[in-house]
């Protein structure tokens, strides 16, 4: 029985894997592995504007494939990654970047985690110190049993 369940689980996992293959929408081939890597990185960090939680690479809508073609053509024309990002931001704004740039408007996005971590560390230090004081107070012998 247990073995059957295990086999079924394996089958389900295999099916999931196949489903994963089936939704690979972008079949663009770049002439060199280096260009392919840059193309893949860029299309994954640019947002599909019509389906806003997908990247260009994941989306099947028409605009995403048009923008992928734009990325491909710019890379083939020898443009840099920053050129491609600047092209997209000039048209669609910062929102198209999944990883926002560090600018006055987006500074709090980048600074907030550090500030929160700092606050957490201060609270942590205070709690540890208070607990430490409690342990000191607990050093007295209990029930007349002397501590070693």
């Amino acid at each position, binding site marked *: 029985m247990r073995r059957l369940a295990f086999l079924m689980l394996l089958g389900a996992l295999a099916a999931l894997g196949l489903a994963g293959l089936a939704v690979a929408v972008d079949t663009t081939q770049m002439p060199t592995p280096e260009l392919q890597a840059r193309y893949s990185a860029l299309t994954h960090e640019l947002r599909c*504007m*019509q389906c806003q939680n997908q990247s260009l690479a994941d989306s099947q809508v*028409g*605009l995403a494939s*048009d*923008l992928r073609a*734009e990325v491909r053509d710019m890379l083939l024309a020898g443009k840099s990654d920053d050129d491609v990002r600047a092209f997209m*931001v*000039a*048209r*669609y*704004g910062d*929102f198209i970047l999944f990883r926002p740039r560090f600018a006055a408007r987006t500074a709090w996005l980048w600074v907030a985690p550090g500030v929160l971590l700092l606050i957490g560390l201060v609270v942590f230090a205070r709690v540890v110190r208070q607990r430490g004081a409690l342990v000191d107070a607990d050093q007295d012998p209990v029930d007349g049993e002397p501590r070693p």
Partner: protein
Amino acid sequence: MNRFILPIVAFALLVVVLAIGIRHAPEKGTVPSVLVGRAAPAFALPNLTDPAQTVRSSDLKGRWYLFNVWGTWCFECRAEHETLLEVRRAGVVPLIGLDWKDDDAEARSWLQQLGNPYDAVAADHIGRTAIDWGVYGAPETFLVNPQGVVVYKLVGPLTHEVWAREILPRLSRPGAAGT
């Protein structure tokens, strides 16, 4: 007492942050356009109703125009068509259409059946001009001033309310000469 102050302050801070977030939430989840306040992108595309002719942005300099992105595949465009015809009848501002990745014959029969509100329609077969304008979903409408600067952008269907509230006042503002 002291132990309650910090959580209460933290909670109050969170309320303020979320209130600001809600107050500033872009309407209906649309993305603010970077094009507003900047020069309208140039284009030169075949005229839908007369493909031998070219519709050029340079020919539109010196006057106001509404730039409306549509397509026969676009469901909401049918909904806003009545308002576009109304804009045409008002005769206040020329309406330039951008037929986005569409079939020319279908687009022409759409205009024949529903009426043609446009002064000219540019046919953007490959969708490159739409990308230059930062279009991400039809219909979208831009108001361009005589200096060629985009002063307003609408994502979604143009309604009578938007026309009366957002577009007409901008056209009649002091300094809005050239209409």
